[in-house]
């Protein structure tokens, strides 16, 4: 191991920023679970649908009927335990597993920020985030002044990847030179107070938003990293995320990112927060004598550093897997998910399935509403892997109904970023015979246009 890397890994820093991050992350996730339940989404997204779209390889992950509620309770409670720093290691493992299970149940609800939360939870399993400001300190009568610096840096790196890769993804001709999809989305916000009917439909404003969004994403990790620009950067973070929250229905994501960005601040800032919280609970905690050790030491340091290293190599490489596919990424979406491609496309489709008797040629069309919720139908209509999985479901369904020689064809039209809709799937291909895999899908028709860039 080179000296510099070794000395970096041994470098210590104050534990306060990570402890504050852990607490805020836990509370937000707990609130997120309650909010999800409150909106009735457990029912509408996981209980009501007859059929769920699975991730390739995770077909065994399904909603658990009414026990799905229990899953959300477990997830919310473990997040609360994370916030308190109570049995932290166990709590964050349970949170990671339950949250990830929830996200894997149906890919209809895929969101980049859910993926971000899963990754962050995984990372946090290996971090001593309960070194301070935790109930564990009270139970073990032990706290730690310092922790390895790489632990805090790894959180910053993950945040930095999310922003920077989201910025890289914006380096394409639709975003920069056609102001798409903001050109579609912004004018539809005409009913916002003040700016709705003055700015939103202006072409210059749409371009300004596109370009500044791209610059923001690319620059913000670096601006947060350097002390001299940090204050300014945080103001930008707040403005940017509030603005996106006002414009788009993106739930808690903006607040998660705003709060997460606090980890870039110096320990002195976080110490003040800890002091503030400790003052509140002073009467309760002062009776317990806590010994503060100078530094947290990993028991399995080498394997953990290796795991974290591999994790980041994977994170850096995985979003570029789309390069292995021949066709336009936005059109085929092969390698689109799990790559920080956020708000890049306005894509809509309509897919009508045709069940054919292969022998007689008799056919009929399927009413998607008989099998899918409107939300599932919307998401299915323009995503090839959804279309394939649904075609198999229909094929199995009608075969079990007694139909013979079932073939499943789809007539699908998709419009991308304000272009006229065009045929999407080869309607002469029997999708019931096609298998899901990571290989390019030959039955996706070519895109009639060119989107240049990353």
């Amino acid at each position: 191991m080179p000296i510099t890397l070794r000395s970096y890994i041994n470098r210590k820093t104050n534990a306060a920023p990570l402890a504050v991050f852990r607490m805020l992350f836990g509370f937000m996730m707990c609130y997120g679970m309650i909010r999800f339940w409150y909106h009735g989404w457990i029912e509408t997204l996981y209980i009501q649908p007859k059929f769920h779209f699975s991730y390739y390889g995770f077909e065994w992950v399904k909603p658990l009927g009414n026990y799905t509620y229990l899953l959300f309770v477990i997830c919310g409670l473990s997040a609360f335990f994370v916030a308190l720093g109570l049995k932290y290691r166990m709590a964050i493992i349970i949170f990671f597993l339950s949250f990830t299970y929830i996200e894997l149940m149906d890919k209809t609800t895929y969101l980049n920020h859910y993926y971000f939360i899963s990754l962050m939870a995984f990372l946090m399993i290996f971090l001593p985030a309960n070194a301070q400001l935790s109930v564990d300190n009270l139970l073990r009568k032990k706290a730690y002044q310092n922790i390895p610096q790489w632990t805090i840096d790894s959180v910053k790196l993950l945040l930095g990847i999310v922003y920077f890769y989201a910025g890289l993804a914006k380096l394409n001709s639709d975003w920069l030179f056609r102001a798409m999809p903001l050109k579609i989305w912004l004018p539809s916000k005409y009913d916002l107070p003040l700016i709705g009917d003055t700015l939103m439909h202006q072409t210059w404003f749409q371009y300004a938003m596109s370009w500044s969004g791209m610059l923001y994403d690319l620059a913000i990790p670096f601006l947060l990293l350097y002390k001299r620009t940090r204050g300014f950067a945080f103001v930008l973070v707040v403005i940017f995320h509030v603005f996106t929250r006002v414009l788009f229905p993106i739930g808690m994501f903006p607040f998660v990112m705003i709060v997460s960005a606090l980890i870039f601040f110096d320990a002195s800032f976080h110490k003040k927060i800890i002091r503030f919280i400790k003052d509140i609970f002073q009467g309760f905690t002062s009776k317990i004598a806590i010994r503060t050790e100078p530094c947290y030491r990993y028991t399995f340091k080498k394997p953990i550093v290796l795991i974290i290293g591999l994790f980041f190599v994977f994170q850096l490489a995985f979003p570029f897997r789309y390069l292995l596919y021949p066709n336009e990424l936005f059109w085929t979406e092969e390698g689109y998910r799990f790559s920080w491609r956020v708000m890049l496309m306005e894509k809509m489709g309509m897919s009508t399935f045709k069940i054919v008797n292969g022998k007689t040629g008799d056919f009929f069309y399927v009413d998607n509403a008989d099998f899918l919720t409107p939300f599932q139908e919307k998401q299915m209509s323009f995503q090839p892997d959804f279309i394939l999985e649904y075609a198999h479901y229909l094929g199995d369904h009608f075969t079990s109904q007694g139909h013979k020689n079932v073939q499943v064809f789809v007539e699908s039209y998709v419009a991308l970023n304000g272009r006229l809709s065009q045929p999407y799937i080869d309607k002469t291909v029997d999708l019931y015979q096609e298998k899901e895999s990571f290989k390019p899908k030959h039955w996706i028709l070519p895109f009639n246009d060119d989107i240049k860039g990353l």
Partner: protein
Amino acid sequence: MFTLRKVVLALIVVSLYTACSSSSSDDGSSENKDSYDRGDLLVNLADNMIIPAYQDLNTSLKSLKADKDAFVASPDQAHLDALRTSWLASYKVWQSVEMFNIGKAESLLYGFQMNVYPTSVQEVEANIASGSYDLTHPNNNDAVGFPAVDYLLFGVAADDVAIVNVYNDAKYTKYLSDLIDQMQALTETVLNDWTSSYRDVFVSETGNTATSALNKFTNDYVFYFEKGLRANKIGIPAGNFSSTPLPEKVEGFYSKVYSKILALDALNASQNVFNGKAYATSATGESFKTYLLFLDRQDLVTQLETQFEEAREKLNMLNDDFYTQVTTDNTKMTEAYDALQKIVVLLKVDMLQAFNISVDYVDADGD
């Protein structure tokens, strides 16, 4: 340097602003600047298309009622002919109304009480035999409205002489009478709601929310075109949704010769609404078309105009009676379906994407 207090203060300001802006109501600002005035679009819809169409339907149904009264008073061939003529006239006007399933029409399930076909002969006859029925009950949706009257005027007996004869039975005259009275009464209720109060509510709801009139109307319009026009009139009888064609499911099954004329009227009515053409005059105003043009989507408008033309040509090639068409040469029916389907794609995918309508059915976070 950043202090904790400043950060907390910033977060409070942020959450207040977010809270305020997300609670904005359906009502749009009335003083639009140079951007597109969606209020004008709704005003044009309400004042020049929806209300005049309802008024015309109500007038037409009143004369249907008068002809029915004359027929009931003295059932003979001449009165039957007059009654059939005014039934057709009303049915044609109905084609301009069915797509306006919003407001009172939606809450009354007006459309289901006016034009569910095929009508159930069994239920019609059962109602007539029993003499007691609730015409508004959902179970009776397929025993009321234009299709039930279609049966009573054209299909209740083998030929005209026999049909006239049927109406010597008071039970039959009563049911026919009740049906037509009910259709007119319902229409008047919906019309009065528009003219007395709903019109102002409708034109004020220009917001882009799931429940605003603009969004609901747009979704309803597209839904009507897909379901009421494409599927019900053409697709279902042609067997697009079943293993075999179902020719007895055509609109105007008993009168035989009107299914094409009704379908063409429906297509014209949809296109007129798209173009913003007034119901009663040739004046045009703000419409989906002008909205698309404002959004720089001339390409889509051109495409839609071409497809409307193509669909009209395909419909014109069909037999006056779709039943005959399906049973003799169903390919022409499926071709007409395909032409209508192209319009559905353009409306549902391209137009809704261009408007970026907040849809009422998707309730979850986005990215």
